[in-house]
């Protein structure tokens, strides 16, 4: 597999073409924007939490295949997660795209495809945009 094919795996392009979790939530919700000024990538997360769990999560935005596919995967993976599970997953993904991943990738499902980003330092910001935004949103939840 060339590094380019590893970056643009079919599963990534699929999430890019047919994003899951695209949309907005009705209030009550937490909204968090992620923005990459140099390229204009934008991800806006809408999040509703209840009883220490993510009840629903959606994203809007525009940007490259990596940032949008990554946001799509995030919404899919986060549905129903406890806040602690969510935080742990964020850390796992951040490590993954920087090539510092340890442990079992199989549990990650589609998200494991983001590992291809590790060969492309300039794209790490794209892949992590949504995840950093979620991290900030969770901080609002305390």
């Amino acid at each position, binding site marked *: 597999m060339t590094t380019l094919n590893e970056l*643009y795996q079919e599963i990534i392009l699929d999430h890019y073409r047919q994003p899951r979790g695209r949309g907005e939530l009705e209030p009550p919700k937490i909204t968090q924007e992620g923005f990459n000024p140099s390229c204009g990538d934008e991800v806006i997360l809408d999040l509703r939490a209840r009883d220490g769990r993510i009840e629903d999560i959606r994203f809007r935005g525009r940007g490259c*295949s990596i*940032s949008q596919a990554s946001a799509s995967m995030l919404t899919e993976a986060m549905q129903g997660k406890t806040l602690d599970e969510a935080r742990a997953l964020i850390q796992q993904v951040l490590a993954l795209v920087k090539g510092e991943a340890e442990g079992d990738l199989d549990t990650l499902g589609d998200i494991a495809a983001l590992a291809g980003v590790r060969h492309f330092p300039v794209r790490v910001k794209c892949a992590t945009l949504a995840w950093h935004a979620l991290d900030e949103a969770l901080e609002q939840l305390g």
Partner: protein
Amino acid sequence: MTTTFTLDAREIRRQFPFFQPHSEMRSVVYLDNAATTQKPYAVIEAVSNFWAHHNANVHRGGHGAGAKASELYEAARARVAQFLNAREPAEIVFTRGTTEAINLVASSWGEAFVKAGDEIIVTEMEHHANLLPWMRLAEKQGAHLKVWRITDDGRLNLDDLERLLTERTRLVAVSHISNVLGTVNPVAAICQRAHAAGALCLVDAAQSVAHLPVDVRATDCDFLAFSGHKAYGPTGIGVLYAKRALLEATPPYHVGGGMVQIVRWDRLVWAEPPAKFEAGTPPIGEAVGLHAALDFIDAIGRDAIERYERELTAYALERLQEVPDLRLHGPIPDRAGIFAFSLGEIHPHDIATVLDTRDVAIRSGLHCAHPLGERLGGATARASLAIYNDTQHIDALIDALHEARRIFGRV
């Protein structure tokens, strides 16, 4: 396609370590020249040589080494003055780059001469460096920022300028060449209209000095700024040209050593320009490098550079138009060698990454010109030429664009 070229870029590339067989970069098709150019041996060696053999601080006499360093630093200033056809070296202020030069004008000249209710005109195609300083100044002073919109093909219309100019207009800020659209703006005509309305004109020449002859007297601009690193020179140095009388009237910017004659607890007397604007230890090694860079440019000749880059631009335009779904921004065919484009629905970031894996270095994003980016519908991919590029580089770009279309075919 048969184009004849008036210059052999392979000869030019021999003068650059970047393109040598032993270089880690030798295989890179470098098309990001609007961001920064590569550096010829002559520049790198002039700087190393300065550090090794002539290094000393300037101006604060005492020993022969210091005198030599001062001499080299002032020779660089005189060289820039000659390069721009300024009246005298005292019209040249060394800064860190274009950004600092324009900040200097907006802060020091602007806060002294732009009052509440006055107007400043900027164009819709400006780089942030020639935009944010004026936005901030307008807010600080209660002045109005008026935006000179571009036409749909990315040009400026002089009639629109006439409608914007009033007796309250203090300054028109315009780039010589747009770093996104490649538009070559008619700066002499713009200065003339500005002057007729009693306004001054600042030209951002960051994208032009290395690519066509720039003559501050023929243009009759009041201020002009450029960066060394986009003209084959080092980072850390740029130039503010300003008419002598303006420099005299303008208060200092940074304050500190070297820009002051008398310092008493109750009294300050500034030095004369250009020293007045060069507080602290200046970029001495960098000035020596810039000197060598201007020598490199003039050894080829700015007319020859302009001609060759025009030929290569024509070739690039033709080949880019072959790529299906490619939408090129900016005027055609009359433009500089900077090509911002989009390719179907493929995001520019993805284009750049595909190209990068094929060793074609371009840039993607908003190119530090967000308002223009909004107007163009978001981020774009950008390829930009310099004197060492040739048709092979364009061909590699085109091949890689086809590859991107293959990968993202179904998007």
